[in-house]
């Protein structure tokens, strides 16, 4: 059965069964990645363009690998931020891509709505790899997949987000995704890091980490967004770590069954202490592995076209 959607612009546009469909498909791609030759010819002859207006090594690489493992041809464009102002408009970029007749575009942009802008103007399918503070849907899918591997189902599980929720697209996508899968979501951070009306998205809100940390099944740590914030939001790194960091002391008090995920890259010593990387319940590297498989599933499903309604 084909997916209902032509593009992957955000988790908010997916239903629960859309999400589960993608996660199920990811299982077979995870198996492919374990083979001696981890390549399948499914997308042979297709061209995918990585259009990255914001810098990224890991996400671009992950999509690039995913496309290559499907035997698609992948081309990378990265735009240093200054040339966006001086150079082509997004509209011109869209027109050029359309003229070059590619099959799929993976776009990361600093402004919300940029992937939607492209999707309205291109015949190619569009995958949102991060649009400003809005969404990062493949991150949410790979995080959901990683948690599902370890927990079975997310229904009824308590998941806590810690950090700069206001400026985090990962937080927004994950909160919506996990909620759709039945989890109970809580957010924790200094008030300056929590966006207005966040509780109306169905989250419990906590300002003190120690009040909630030991009651949850999963901790989703977030990066303190240096490049996107106005640094008047918290007084110092020292204070942030003491009040909101997953320090080794806090981790040692956590039940061993509690899982820890982080979208990366981690600010070691700020939101998490370095030792935490070695703890068995830290799933950061699993997230990276699963990321390629999830992105293969997404590209495979979108390349096959969608159910016209």
């Amino acid at each position, binding site marked *: 059965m084909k997916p209902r959607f032509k593009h992957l612009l955000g988790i908010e546009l997916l239903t629960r069964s859309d999400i589960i469909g993608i996660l199920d498909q990811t299982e077979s791609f995870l198996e492919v990645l374990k083979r001696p030759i981890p390549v399948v010819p499914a997308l042979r002859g297709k061209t995918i363009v990585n259009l990255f207006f914001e810098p990224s090594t890991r996400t671009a690489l992950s999509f690039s690998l995913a496309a290559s493992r499907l035997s698609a041809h992948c081309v990378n464009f990265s735009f240093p931020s200054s040339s966006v102002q001086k150079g082509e408009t997004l509209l011109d970029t869209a027109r050029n891509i359309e003229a070059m007749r590619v099959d799929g575009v993976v776009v990361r942009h600093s*402004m*919300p709505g940029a992937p939607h802008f492209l999707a309205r103007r291109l015949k190619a399918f569009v995958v949102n790899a991060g649009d400003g503070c809005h969404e990062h849907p493949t991150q949410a899918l790979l995080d959901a997949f990683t948690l599902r591997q370890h927990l079975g189902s997310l229904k009824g599980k308590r998941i806590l987000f810690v950090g700069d929720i206001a400026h985090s697209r990962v937080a927004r996508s994950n909160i919506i995704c996990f909620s759709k899968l039945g989890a109970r979501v809580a957010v924790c951070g200094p008030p300056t890091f929590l966006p207005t*009306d966040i509780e109306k998205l169905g989250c419990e809100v906590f300002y003190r980490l120690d009040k909630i940390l030991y009651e949850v099944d999963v901790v989703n740590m977030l990066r303190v967004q240096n490049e996107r914030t106005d640094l008047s939001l918290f007084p110092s790194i020292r204070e942030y770590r003491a009040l909101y960091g997953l320090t080794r002391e806090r981790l040692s008090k956590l039940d061993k069954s509690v899982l820890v995920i982080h979208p990366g890259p981690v600010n070691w010593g700020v939101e998490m202490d370095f030792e935490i990387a070695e703890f068995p319940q830290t799933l950061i590297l699993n997230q990276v592995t699963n990321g390629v498989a999830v992105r293969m599933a997404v590209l495979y499903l979108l390349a096959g076209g969608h159910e016209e309604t």
Partner: protein
Amino acid sequence: MKKPERVLLAGGRVVDPGNRRVRIWDVLIQDGRIAKVGKQLRATGAQRIDCRGKHIAPGFIDMHCHLREPGQEDAETIATGTKAALAGGFTKVCPMPNTDPPIDSEALVRFELARAKEAGFARVYPIGSCTKARAGKELAEIGSMKQAGAVAVSDDGSWVDDPQVMRRVLEYCKAFDLPVISHCELTGFPYGVANEGLVSTRLGLAAGPDVSESAAAARDILLAEFTRARLHIAHVSCAATVSLIRWAKARGVQVTAETCPHYFTLTDAALETFDTNFKVNPPLRTDKDRQAVIDGLADGTIDAIATDHAPHTKSAKEVEFDIAPAGFIGFETAFSLGYEQLVLAKKLSLADYVSRMTTAPARILGLPMPCLQPGADADLVILDLKARWTWTRDQVFSRSQNSPFFGRQLHGRVIGGFLGHKQFWFLHPA
């Protein structure tokens, strides 16, 4: 446009905003003025126009719009803008001075008046800037601009953030009995493109809190009280500002206010698709704010409705939401939106609604009181309130087409009217 000696408008429902009533009357126009009104008038040799089933109102006055000339003529000119204004029923418009160069001197006021006269469409009453070059630092030549024909001052587009400068502007304008129109927006908050709330949180858009408008309005209201000057608050968009104005009026502050059709028609829920046609400053707010604006119009806290007609070229608007310019054209949809959201929704009577766009702006700006009485200029519009229509791009008179209202079913329509000696028709009156 013909120039008959006498025209008789027969059998229409005449809206009299001054006396808050509507009645079936004939109107006789002669030599560009209203000659007579009454029942069953006889007028031999007059061109007779059957207005049965239609309404006749004084021509509307838009006290806040942008005509983009000089400087941005690819978006709109005084000629195209005043024509679009007429299509919306506005026989008088007040363009804001944020042009390039800005209207901060007598010469530029005269330029606007001359261009308007050449075009021959809606009459133009210029608004001068408060400060030189709209820079917010030094007083502009307000006295000279008044003498040249300016009816108010404003640095619209920006707030005069230096309180000392705002105080001086308020005080200085007392000598000329000019209202100071303030665009209330605190300058210290980071740039926001959407109202701060659940929608901006979900969409990850840079948010502008409504307190930016209301806190700025509070400062200006208190300065107006202190200086005993006349203040007018532009484009009121949120509940808190409405409450402040109500409080201020009760205290006797000389403050008036306007709002725009989009603030009583749309909410921030419209931003879901990141369509830049919904991007405006102040931004669309929540439904609670929308209701407060409507209540403010109903109880007179908000005196006037203005369009904030803001043309932008297609290429300017067809960019990412964050960097798109704010604002949309508004002349041609204003009347219908207000008729639907206020009159049909039974928040305001038809006469009171029309007064928000006629007598209220006239009173605030010191313009001749619009009325359909013998001796008055024949500036009037003919309306078909039963009309149901959809506005499409090929019907637009404005040079730009940035509007969120295309394809929307609209109620009530301006079908034509008179501007002194001239008649203009957009639809056949029959």
